[in-house]
């Protein structure tokens, strides 16, 4: 794929993340922090989210299955997940975490279970989209580096 086509695809993909409500302004804030001294900053932060989030989702699922229910622990885990998602602008994840927290507050286990399933689906979709996005970015990166080096 030629450079300009790749660039268009990247731009379109990123716009779709915002239009479909997967990401919010925080993602742009991360991109503004990326510079020559930290050229992969956004991908590094997203990688931290994708490292933390599966573990947290697993822990939440494990804790939901325990008896007696530990809503305090569940709230703590989803609090971490919400914070981690907020760091990259993962607005759908963040909103579902808020729903989950409300169910914890109401001690509504069935509500927590349903919310967890939605969180897992959102997470899987977001992960796939972000991985595709960075895969494309990596394809243009060597060309952009070459262009910047000639400046």
């Amino acid at each position: 794929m030629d450079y300009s086509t790749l660039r268009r695809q990247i731009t379109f993909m990123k716009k779709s993340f915002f239009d479909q409500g997967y990401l919010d302004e925080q993602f742009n804030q991360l991109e503004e922090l990326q510079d020559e001294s930290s050229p992969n900053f956004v991908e590094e932060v997203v990688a931290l989210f994708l490292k933390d989030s599966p573990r947290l989702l697993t822990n939440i699922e494990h804790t939901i299955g325990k008896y007696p229910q530990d809503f305090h622990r569940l709230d703590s885990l989803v609090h971490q997940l919400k914070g981690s998602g907020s760091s990259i602008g993962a607005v759908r994840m963040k909103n579902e975490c808020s729903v989950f927290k409300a169910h914890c507050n109401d001690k509504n286990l069935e509500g927590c279970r349903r919310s967890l399933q939605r969180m897992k689906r959102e997470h899987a979709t977001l992960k796939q989209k972000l991985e595709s996005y960075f895969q494309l970015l990596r394809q243009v990166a060597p060309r952009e580096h070459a262009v910047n080096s000639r400046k």
Partner: protein
Amino acid sequence: MDRRRIRVLLVEDEEIHRVVARAVLRAAGVEVEEAENGAEAVRRVRESGAGGGSGAYNLIFTDKQMPVMDGHEATRQIRAMGVATPIVAVSSDSLPPDVQAFITAGANDFTPKPLTKEKLGHILAKFGLA
């Protein structure tokens, strides 16, 4: 104020939040030191020559939920040392009771996570560090 002379203590246990906040702070030109829990923060403040005044840090950002010692207790202990450095809580919990709990512990302000350039700008201006 010359931002290169502004020393900020960032108190945060989770790596993703430290990475983002560190980048925001460095982009603003301030010097950043980090503590991964409240106990380490209290130790750093004590060792910085604090006590009876504003101490070595110009500003402290602290999370709430941390192992060993949480942000509320760290704030209380820092205030108990007589340190007047502005303390700003940075937390995902931003309901009024959460904010009030931090203020009661001795924090000066609260901002929801994540820390951004805009939020930092307001905070630096508020405490005369801009």
